[in-house]
């Protein structure tokens, strides 16, 4: 039997991954009111995500608002304290480093924010905004800071002589460039870009997307690219993860994810994107209508978190959480009945991995597989058919 190898390096590039996230969690406590504020519940914003980002590569993180994308980004930049899990950056787990221990990594991991208005201090000049990180981290001698600021402004396509202007004198797209110049100042190895173009007009979005691609190539920067715009993410990221209610439900290379999604949520999400090319056909595309709203992350559904809106849900979906199983060279999916639309079977593909029968009840003597939360892809994997074949005898018991 082929075994899953929990710590196999990512097969995405020949290189070691720059960032590996393992079973990362962030629960925000909900406090009771009154004098003694006890924790009465938790917002399970991010609940056990694993992925890796190759050096100089890009991983896209998509999903609808509230699914935990920003929280994931803020955990990696350590703006938030992780509740559990590892964040391995160049083989150091930075998840639990103290502020002081974290300092050398601060410059290596930078963030670009969605809102080019609120993320820049309106009372500081562009020179101060871009120059401050240079000074704080002693990147260049004091008398060279301004030269470097000018260089950075030039890199992002702004007039280098505008260093003494204020953010209010720039348009939205230009402000986003200032934010990018600030992030580049420290020559980071990883940029967490949280909805970097969502606030911009479409024509300006393209300018900023192209700029990000240029700086990525020129400086070999890896990106965690967070966005809800599926087309922009497909354009930017060779690899894409889909989140739902704090979990990754599917992760794959972009061709696989966009052309052959295996998770019902990914299928619904993609079918909902309006397509310009529809103009030549007329009418609306056939789409999967999801019923109801996303449930609260304070009290998420048992088993599969998508089951309250899933048209394929069975008993097992309420009892067992589907593990993120690798079913292709660069394809993992978390669904008991994963498959392309219209070709899903009646037998869960997860039975062997979980050691349960098709009702979701444990089978005596069967052990659940270990290491299913490893990031990246293994060169050894079982495709969906193999999972199915192995599952069937169990299902009969």
């Amino acid at each position, binding site marked *: 039997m082929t075994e899953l190898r929990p710590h196999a390096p990512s097969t995405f590039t020949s290189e070691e991954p720059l960032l590996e996230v393992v079973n990362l969690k962030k629960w925000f406590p909900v406090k009771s009111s009154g004098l003694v504020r006890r924790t009465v519940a938790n917002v399970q914003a991010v609940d056990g995500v694993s992925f890796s980002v190759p050096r100089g590569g890009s991983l896209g993180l998509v999903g*609808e608002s509230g699914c935990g994308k920003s929280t994931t980004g803020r955990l990696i930049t350590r703006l938030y304290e992780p509740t559990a899990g590892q964040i391995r950056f160049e083989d150091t787990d930075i998840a639990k480093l103290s502020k002081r221990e974290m300092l050398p990594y601060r410059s290596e991991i930078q963030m670009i924010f969605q809102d080019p208005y609120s993320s820049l201090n309106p009372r500081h000049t562009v020179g101060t905004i871009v120059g401050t990180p240079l000074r704080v981290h002693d990147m260049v001698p004091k008398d060279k800071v301004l030269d470097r600021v000018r260089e950075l402004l030039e890199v992002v396509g702004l007039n280098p002589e505008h260093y003494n202007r204020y953010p209010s004198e720039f348009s939205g797209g230009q402000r986003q460039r200032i934010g990018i110049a600030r992030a580049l100042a420290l020559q980071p190895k990883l940029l967490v870009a949280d909805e970097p173009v969502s606030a911009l007009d479409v*024509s300006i979005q*393209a300018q900023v997307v*192209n700029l990000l691609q240029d700086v990525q190539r020129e400086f070999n920067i890896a990106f965690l690219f967070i966005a809800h715009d599926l087309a922009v993410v497909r354009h930017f990221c060779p690899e894409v993860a889909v989140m739902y209610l704090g979990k990754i439900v599917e992760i794959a290379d972009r061709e696989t994810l966009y052309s052959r999604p295996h998770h019902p949520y990914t299928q619904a999400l993609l079918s*909902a994107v309006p397509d*310009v090319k529809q103009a030549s056909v007329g009418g609306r595309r056939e789409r999967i209508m999801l019923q109801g709203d996303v449930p609260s992350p304070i009290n998420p559904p048992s088993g599969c978190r998508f089951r309250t809106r899933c048209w394929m849900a069975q008993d097992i979906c309420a009892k067992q959480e589907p593990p993120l199983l690798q079913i292709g060279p660069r394809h993992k999916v978390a669904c008991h009945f994963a498959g392309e639309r219209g070709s899903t079977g009646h037998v869960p593909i997860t039975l062997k991995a979980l050691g349960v029968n098709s009702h979701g009840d444990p089978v005596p003597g069967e052990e659940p597989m270990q290491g299913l939360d490893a990031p990246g892809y293994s060169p050894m994997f079982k495709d969906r058919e193999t999972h199915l074949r192995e599952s069937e005898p169990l299902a009969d018991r």
Partner: protein
Amino acid sequence: MSSPHVNEGFLSAGQQVFQPSAGEDPFLVVDELTVRFPTHDGLVQAVTDLSYSVERGKTLGIVGESGSGKSVSSMAVLGLHDPRSTRLSGSIRVGGREIVGADEDDLRRLRGKDVAMIFQDPLSALHPFYSIGDQIAEAYLLHNKVSKREAKARAVEMLDRVGIPQARNRVDDFPHQFSGGMRQRAMIAMALVNDPKLLIADEPTTALDVTVQAQILDLLQDLQREFNSAIIIITHDLGVIAEMADDVLVMYAGRAVETGPTKLLLTNPEMPYTWGLLSSVPDVTASTDARLIPIPGNPPSLLNPPSGCPFNPRCAHKDKVPGDLCTTTLPDLLPAQVGEDHRRRCHLPDPEVIYGTEVLPEIAPNLVEQHEQTREEETR
């Protein structure tokens, strides 16, 4: 619980068959609309010489960058501009009645009855301190002689109709108790409570997730089919236009720069700004290695718009126009080369050829053949 009024509502209108009588004017006719705002910094030329019309049962999509005059022109249709701070000229006829210069009482009778508007931000239309149900009932009471009870029953039906689960239990909720998608539905319910003949949706789904957007767009289409209303949908998303609109109006710097039937305009566009919009968005369904082609620069200031063609500072094709026409002379909105009812504001002598041979091969090489085909069919 149903009252006669409720039964007469659009809930039962699905059975009716609408047949536009020949020769009748379109329900909305906007003619040479110009809107100016005098400000400390000067005169904001928000909308200039804008003309369009929408028939009942049809959807017009308006696209353009922010600040291009989409909202200002639509608000004029509802008579929402304060005459003391706005200079407005031209004509807007709704169901044959003139809106420009109409008094506030007439406008109030029109708003929320024959014409309704939904906004990007539902909280701007919903009062935080009143229940959703009371607000919808109030909008109904304003235009119908019914009891409060009947109005409330109507609110429940409307919420149910727009897909609020357990509407009867949620009708007394306050706006903050609804999710973003539900608030949007509640606002739509309120806008539709009096069976408007014209619905203006100003970026109704921009703030929403795609799955919720899909639900809202479906809802608008269902309601249109049942009730035969005219719809104007304002959006920056050409995908939404492609799937929803019968006709498109592309706006730039307060003017119409290209208009026409959706299929024609999106497959055979003839104005460089429209090309720019199409080439700056990535494709969700196709391979991804082609670089995006952004429109350089920023939209112009409407305090001091460029002379000549307003798009000229950003246009990559102006060197193909003889002389300095692009910088000195405003092009007229003239019939396009391909297709009936297709108009464009551009001096280029042969935009069709440029699009087919220069633009399309860059942005969608796989569509060149199809483009050629439509072109032949339409020009035959």
